[in-house]
């Protein structure tokens, strides 16, 4: 019990007991809400048996007092009202004392309502805003590419400015450590193609073409595309998050203030590192894909290894390999640019960091697939 209620001649006598603290708010709230004010003209509140009263308790008591007064009752305290109640009153009084009438305690809820809320945006405005954002984004990306190119060209005459050690680190982080996952995916993909095409081609007695499908498919398209998508997820996000948290931590500002161009120190090594590592990863994916094809042809089609190798050498030419590998550096630039660009855009809060990292990955994957489609058209036109 936190309140003891007694009926008196003219109304109620309330005796507050126990601890009136935030953590016992539910009991206080229920007890006060249960007090029946009907027919009470005078309410006497005694607080001397109160063990503790904090601001939350005092605030609830004030609510009750206001409610009772509103209902027409006279509320008095036995002895002096508790200090905490006075503190609540004082805090709630408008800060601007000149404008404040002595009892004009502004309703906090009203004050809260008056504060500007993030405005609701009409559909048309929303579309317009998005269009402008998109346009600015494109200009921003173009400017980023321009600055990157300028930095790269400026760094060319002096190899030290290319930061070989930093590039090596990024080749390791984005390339060497990605080998296991890239190899596994390449193997599984070649298994999937081999398995599916074997089912279809068996009907025509043309199982031997499984080899063509696997090798050409992996070398020309899937090897490089899937590697790029994995790297976009792994390294595109890492670039954005790394640079983004450096931005939040003012490390990028510190670099710039030291006279180091962050594009030269942070962006360029990542782009160049990925340009080195993605083609190498693609070679790994190609090799593993062909091995995977061999394993499946041997187990599913009972094709001897020498026949597989023979067929592979007939099916593919150096062009098949190069048509795939030539795309890798382009994909690498797209992924690295999406990651580093979004990372450099982070400002303010960790929420931005998360949002822009997501954008970086989604954009990198989208750009890779778009570029792959353009390559397909291009190769078709020039007859490769």
């Amino acid at each position, binding site marked *: 019990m936190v309140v003891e209620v007694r009926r008196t001649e003219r109304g109620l006598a309330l005796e507050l007991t126990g601890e009136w*603290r*935030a*953590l016992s*708010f*539910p009991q206080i*709230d229920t007890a006060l809400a249960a007090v029946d004010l009907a027919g009470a003209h005078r309410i006497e509140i005694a607080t001397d048996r109160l063990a503790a009263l*904090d*601001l*939350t*308790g005092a*605030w609830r008591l004030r609510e009750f007092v206001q409610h009772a007064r509103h209902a027409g009752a006279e509320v008095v305290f036995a002895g002096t009202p508790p*200090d905490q109640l006075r*503190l*609540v009153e004082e*805090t*709630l009084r408008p*800060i601007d004392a000149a404008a404040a009438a002595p009892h004009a305690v502004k309703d*906090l*809820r009203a*004050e*809260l309502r008056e*504060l*500007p*809320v993030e405005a609701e945006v009409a559909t048309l405005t929303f579309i317009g805003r998005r269009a402008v954002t998109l346009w600015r984004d494109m200009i921003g990306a173009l400017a980023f590419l321009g600055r990157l190119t300028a930095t790269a060209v400026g760094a060319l005459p002096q190899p030290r400015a290319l930061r070989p050690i930093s590039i090596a680190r990024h080749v390791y982080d984005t390339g060497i450590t990605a080998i296991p996952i890239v190899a596994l995916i390449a193997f599984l993909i070649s298994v999937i193609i081999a398995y599916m095409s074997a089912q279809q081609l068996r009907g025509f007695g043309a199982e031997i073409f499984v080899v063509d499908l696997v090798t050409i498919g992996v070398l020309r398209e899937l090897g490089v595309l899937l590697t790029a998508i994995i790297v976009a997820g792994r390294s595109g996000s890492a670039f954005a998050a790394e640079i983004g948290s450096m931005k939040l931590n003012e490390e990028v500002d510190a670099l710039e203030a030291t006279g180091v161009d962050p594009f030269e120190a942070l962006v360029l090594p990542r782009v160049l590192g990925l340009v080195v590592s993605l083609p190498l990863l693609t070679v790994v994916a190609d090799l593993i894909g062909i091995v995977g094809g061999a394993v499946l042809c041997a187990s599913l089609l009972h094709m001897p290894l020498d026949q597989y190798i023979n067929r592979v050498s007939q099916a593919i030419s150096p062009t098949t390999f190069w048509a795939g590998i030539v795309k890798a550096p382009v994909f690498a630039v797209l992924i690295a640019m999406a990651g580093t660009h979004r990372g450099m855009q982070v400002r*303010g*809060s*960790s*929420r931005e960091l998360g949002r822009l990292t997501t954008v970086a990955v989604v954009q990198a994957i989208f750009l890779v697939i778009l570029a792959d489609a353009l390559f397909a058209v291009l190769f078709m036109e020039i007859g490769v």
Partner: protein
Amino acid sequence: MIYPVLEVHGLSNRFGSQVVHDGLDMEVHEDEVFGIVGGSGTGKSVLLRSILGLQRPRAGTIRIEGHDITQLSGGGLRAVKARYGVTFQQGALYSALNVLQNVQLPMVEHLSALAPSARDELAMLKIRLVGLPADAARKYPAELSGGMVKRAALARALALDPRLLFLDEPTSGLDPISAAEFDELMLYLQKQLRLTVVMITHDLDSIFRTCNRVGVIVDRRMETDTLAGIVDHPNPWIQAYFHGERASIHLKVTHGA
């Protein structure tokens, strides 16, 4: 009260072969402002993290209002955590939430019975209490100045009206005027709300203005005394700390008076 508000006994912490605390004792009484001082790397933060239950010590007991948190876990620990408020050095406001939501978060977590409108009002009450303007309520942490971040963090720490308040370097990063204002605010609240404050600080101005007693971490233990007493402690680090160039002005005041 039979027991101190906070009692640390025989606390030991180590990382690998590095011993941070070895049998550290500390006692904080009701209604006092207790300052924790120590050189860099002496384990002030580790001590605070142990007390807050963020990290289990190797040995020792830590009692908050009588509950030994080293023996608690789950719901019991959670209940003790609702009894203290804490502000972190950088404010540690949740950047995805505005100030109002930041202050409300402990209420949402621990007082689900509170109606949303009551929560709004109580949060506004706390925001006003720490002297923030009303329009700060809808601002996000990234939009606040350093001093406002500290005040908002204080409002959040006071959300559940704790009696025990931990402040980790509350005045670091503030200009001297804002730091002095923060000290006065803290003293005002301490008096009005009858808070027990435990404060890690390097700020000599702050220590001399606000602390009743000071605990200095030296040699992996804590030397505790009143402010007037600690300045005469024979330990060389404490001597250097309280008798350095930066401290001289305060000593004249304390000893001269």
